[in-house]
């Protein structure tokens, strides 16, 4: 975790974005390191950079997003975790590039709880995202996931039903242990 700074020196969303876009790799790396200090409020803006045409800036934005999400899910910070879930869920349901939505889905598997289930379950009918969403749901230890998967099974494409059944079975076998 980055060392807290005096308030006047703390990075803002604007300075974080400027550093993420900077051509100097050491400045980008520092920005990624400090991204958790800016926190969840930077997620939407980082998504803009991620969706832009500069692969180096997009990679730095991806790393910053990842660090912000995991920092928000640390023990003892439930409000931050909920805020991160809300922001990531919005990305999942957005019209952003699929690579970004896949990353947001993956992070929701770690960060999300009941509050992430609806956003993930909504992707179970999207042929390009459904398996990523299933994998994220399988990871979330919440009973709402089982209900969502069971419901999706009723309408899922026949090709995808075995995958949903597998997730349900894996969750049942872990629940028994």
């Amino acid at each position, binding site marked *: 975790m980055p060392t807290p700074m005096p308030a006047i020196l703390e990075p803002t969303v604007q300075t974080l974005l400027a550093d993420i876009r900077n051509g100097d790799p050491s400045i980008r790396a520092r920005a990624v390191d400090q991204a958790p200090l800016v926190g969840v409020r930077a997620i939407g803006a980082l998504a803009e950079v991620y969706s832009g045409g500069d692969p180096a800036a997009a990679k730095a934005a991806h790393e910053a997003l990842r660090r912000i999400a995991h920092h928000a*899910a*640390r023990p003892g910070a439930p409000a931050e975790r909920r805020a991160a879930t809300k922001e990531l869920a919005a990305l999942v349901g957005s019209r952003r590039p699929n690579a970004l939505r896949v990353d947001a889905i993956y992070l929701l598997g770690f960060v999300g709880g009941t509050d992430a289930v609806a956003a993930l379950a909504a992707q179970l009918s999207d042929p390009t995202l459904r398996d990523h969403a299933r994998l994220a749901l399988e990871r979330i230890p919440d009973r709402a996931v089982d209900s969502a998967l069971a419901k999706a099974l009723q309408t899922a494409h026949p090709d995808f039903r075995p995958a949903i059944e597998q997730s349900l079975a894996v969750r049942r076998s872990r629940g028994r242990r």
Partner: protein
Amino acid sequence: MSNEQRVSRRAFMGRAASAIALPTVIPSSVLARQGRQGANDRIVTANIGVGGMGTNHVAADAAAICDVDDNHLANAAKRVTKGTPFLTKDYRHILDRKDIDAVIIATPDHWHALMTVHACQAGKHVMSEKPTCKTLGEGRAMVDAARRYKRVVQIHAQGRSNPVAHKACEFVRNGNLGRVRRVEIWHPVNFTTDNWGAPEPVPPTLDWNMWLGPARWAEYNPRRCHFNFRWFMDYGGGFIRDRGNHALSIVSWLMNHDDYKGLVTCEATGTPMLTGFYDVPATMEVTWHFQDPDWTLTWSQPGRPNPRFPGEWGATYYGDRDSLVVLGGDGGCDTEEKAKRYEPPSGGVRVFKSPGHRENWLDCIRTGQRPVMDVEIGYHVITLCILGNIAYTLGRKVTYDFARERFVGDEEANRFIHEPYRAPWRLA
């Protein structure tokens, strides 16, 4: 191509008779006691994964070879000089064969656990390349399968069979350093690329869907595949899970730490890989702290070689009386003269000396004993490597309870224990 695996789970262990023509061969184990080879029986082996390191495992009399790349298959087949091996791209065809006693797994890392569990279920003994596994849940499943099906499962962290490492082990275990409170490992940085991972056509020789197997779907790029998989968290996890398995295996052995069941804290920092599409950190610093007895282990990548006895990678053991440098820990290992010359006194600690890693594995198949790098030790060792990656990813210190096999007070960290698989792949 669809992002879901198309091969039915039901295919495993049930359909081979109709799907492929199999020779009728009497399994060698039938000739001996049930489930164990006789002392002079030939143990029929097959190889799964024969690119890179896997090529070296192919014996002249290998009965079958599997690889998802036709080029690997063709190259490996040339190494077989006694008989004609059965070649396949699907390891389940090998597991279905009754004439094969044991398999050597040298696939990319994300396959090790699944194949080991399936091989045990099919009654095969296993030697699987390091790293033991990708996730903690996989390690537990491997140990459970080995015990349930009474198979000999050796992890190919072959430093445990290295005679120089053995010398170092007896030197440290007999107290020549005094009480060791700190071990520092140094290692070069992870590889980098300027490739951003744009999808490329899958070569006609490669079954990309099968290469990915249980891992989440990703488009093919040659920098994601063969050898380079090491630089992705989804497959290899960087040097800490690769060579780290070797390095930490030697540390655990010398420190007599394989049975540790207490708590360990782990902190990790690193430089993110911001150029190219590899996603392991470029550099990494990891610190583990153990309790009762208290001691600290560090992984520095890059680290500074010990100037007293330098080498590309290795570890320095700091005791309250002396220190010792041990280099490497895979097939290559070296240490200082004081340890190489050492002979334990009468009544001193004697450590089992392996005749060679493969030989030890084959011996244990015949005797039913546990091998020198039994899967349970492999699981213990790789746990530390995996904790390093989890602590890095989370950006915070984690505490892991070896007895409960759970993180303490960190619900998110516990979500790393199991990695959901693409269908139809399941561990149990």
